[in-house]
């Protein structure tokens, strides 16, 4: 007896959203040369349109949209599901990837009739691969399928780290790859145990079946550990600063803004969608404690970096910590857990846009000045006002000053901490904001002081505009209307409303 096909209207969009970048990869690889860039950039509007269409469908239906591949319902088949968070993440990823792509044209363009180059082909294909992998991660409904997507993401990200071929980037890429493999094998072992326990890997089916047994806890622990390794949550961040600081700017923006969010998203899926029925306060507090350590250590280390890109990379370590505060703040079915949930998603988005904008600006800065030593920035703000405006606006969001997405996230986090009586989590939120102010101040003050500066080449206005656009989105998130937060609630298990 087969369960009925759960496909909903609009579900086909999910398949198309995945297959589009996959087709792009294949085409780029075969056609090669300049065509890889043409395909990659040419597909961006379609990818963006699909993401928007999915978001529209989810919002208008008020419930997740589903597609059962091959007409086979889970557990035998694989289902794709997009709920509110998926939809929002899809759109965010589409915007950032498109921005990174157009920004990167200056560096990875192949001249008309020129020979195919290693770095260009790699960049354009891996960019699309990241798009494909993230799309699957955001809408995948099967834990093994998500494993393949995670690997896809890693395989796309690693070559970007070492795309310029210097030995230190190769070492960074190797360290990243090996630790990510450590993480994925841990995840896969957890998947095996889930299958052994319940005979399915479909997320909603598992959610119905799981009980608090040692098998489930071991599986969850292994999967979480693996995902934390891939997300670089402190103290598993060994690979992140060198990898993100050494990659080309467009790649760093995608790696810091989106790629780490992929594995984080799966951590959310695991605890809030597979295991919502379990009382996971202990695990949530462990993750919260790691988050606290990440925020403090990452921010302090960011304060102490001499190079701008390393500073931004360490800031990512800290901001990843903020992401994990969602676990103690949104676990369970309370009125406040909805606030915590909104805070977590807002933090993902705000950091994605702000950090991408900052890395892109840092890239422009490094190209214009020939270095990214903060101590030698004197006078740079006058020479590159738009770039520093972007850095400042991105920094505004990181500090959590209004109006910005970062402010909204912190605001909601503080509310959830207070409402849940967990005042301890206000400490990292506030301390992190203060320290972030410190490192943003460290970037801007030397730049705003007087000094003569020789630009190697002024940055192109269009590239500056792309970075500024992302920073403005990070700011605009601060004005997100109630409807946006309602969208995030669509499909969230144990949403407070459904409990009462």
């Amino acid at each position: 007896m087969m369960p009925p096909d759960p496909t909903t209207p609009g579900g086909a969009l999910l398949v198309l959203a995945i297959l589009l970048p996959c087709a792009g990869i294949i085409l780029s690889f075969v056609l090669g040369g300049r065509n890889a860039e043409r395909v990659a950039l040419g597909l961006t509007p379609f990818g963006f349109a699909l993401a928007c269409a999915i978001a529209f469908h989810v919002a208008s239906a008020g419930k997740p949209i589903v597609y059962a591949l091959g007409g086979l319902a889970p557990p035998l088949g694989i289902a794709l599901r997009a709920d509110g968070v998926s939809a929002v993440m899809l759109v965010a990823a589409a915007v950032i990837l498109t921005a990174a792509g157009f920004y990167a044209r200056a560096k990875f363009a192949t001249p008309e009739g020129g020979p195919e180059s290693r770095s260009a082909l790699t960049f354009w294909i891996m960019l699309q691969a990241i798009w494909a992998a993230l799309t699957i991660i955001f809408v995948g409904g099967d834990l093994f399928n998500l494993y393949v997507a995670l690997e896809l993401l890693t395989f796309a990200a690693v070559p970007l780290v070492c795309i310029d071929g210097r030995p230190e980037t190769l070492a960074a890429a190797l360290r990243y790859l090996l630790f990510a493999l450590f993480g994925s094998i841990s995840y896969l072992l957890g998947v095996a145990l889930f299958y052994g326990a319940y005979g399915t890997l479909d997320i909603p089916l598992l959610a119905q079946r799981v009980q608090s047994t040692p098998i489930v806890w071991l599986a969850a622990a292994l999967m979480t550990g693996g995902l934390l390794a891939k997300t670089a949550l402190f103290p598993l961040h060994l690979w992140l600063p060198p990898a993100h600081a050494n990659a080309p700017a467009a790649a760093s923006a995608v790696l810091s803004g989106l790629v780490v969010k992929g594995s984080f998203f799966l951590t959310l899926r695991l605890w809030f969608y597979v295991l919502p029925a379990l009382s996971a306060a202990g695990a949530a507090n462990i993750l919260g404690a790691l988050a606290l350590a990440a925020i403090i250590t990452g921010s302090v280390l960011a304060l102490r970096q001499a190079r701008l890109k390393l500073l931004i990379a360490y800031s990512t370590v800290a901001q990843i910590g903020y992401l994990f505060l969602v676990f103690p703040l949104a676990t369970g079915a309370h009125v406040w857990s909805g606030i915590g949930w909104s805070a977590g998603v807002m933090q993902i988005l705000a950091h994605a846009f702000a950090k991408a904008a900052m890395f892109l600006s840092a890239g422009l800065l490094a190209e214009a000045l020939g270095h990214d030593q903060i101590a030698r920035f004197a006078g740079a703000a006058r020479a590159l006002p738009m770039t520093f405006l972007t850095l400042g606006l991105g920094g505004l969001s990181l500090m959590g000053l209004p109006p910005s997405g970062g402010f909204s996230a912190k605001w909601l986090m503080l509310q959830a901490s207070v409402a849940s009586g967990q005042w301890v989590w206000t400490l990292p939120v506030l301390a992190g904001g203060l320290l972030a102010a410190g490192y943003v101040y460290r970037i801007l003050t030397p730049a705003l002081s007087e000094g003569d500066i020789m630009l190697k080449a002024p940055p192109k206005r269009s590239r500056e505009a792309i970075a500024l656009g992302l920073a403005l989105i990070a700011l605009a998130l601060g004005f997100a209307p109630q409807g946006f937060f309602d969208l995030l609630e669509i499909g969230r298990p144990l949403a407070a409303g459904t409990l009462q």
Partner: protein
Amino acid sequence: MSPWVLAGLVGAALVGLGLYGLILHPHPLRKLLAFNLIGSGVFLVFGIVARRGAAAGFSFDPIPQAMVITGIVVAFAASALAVALILRLHAESGRVTLDPEAWTKPDDGAAKS
């Protein structure tokens, strides 16, 4: 003792050994070997799950077995990528260390472009 229990013990032993090697061996190629050991241990767990799932005339549950096949191919691809990186790193620098301090150069961090 049924065979799958034995396989389970082997699988767990492989995972344990691999973890030990992956954490402690400084050489990246040895780490990669250890990763593959863990991998085969994990695949054995899938194998046990498949074997225990024998039903409906099948002597195994085909789903986990199919996953293992996919997993083996992905693990191989990962190994190939890691080997390529190790060899290139060795060729470029003569070293293969993953020690983060070994790669911090006193340069000005000039972005190569």
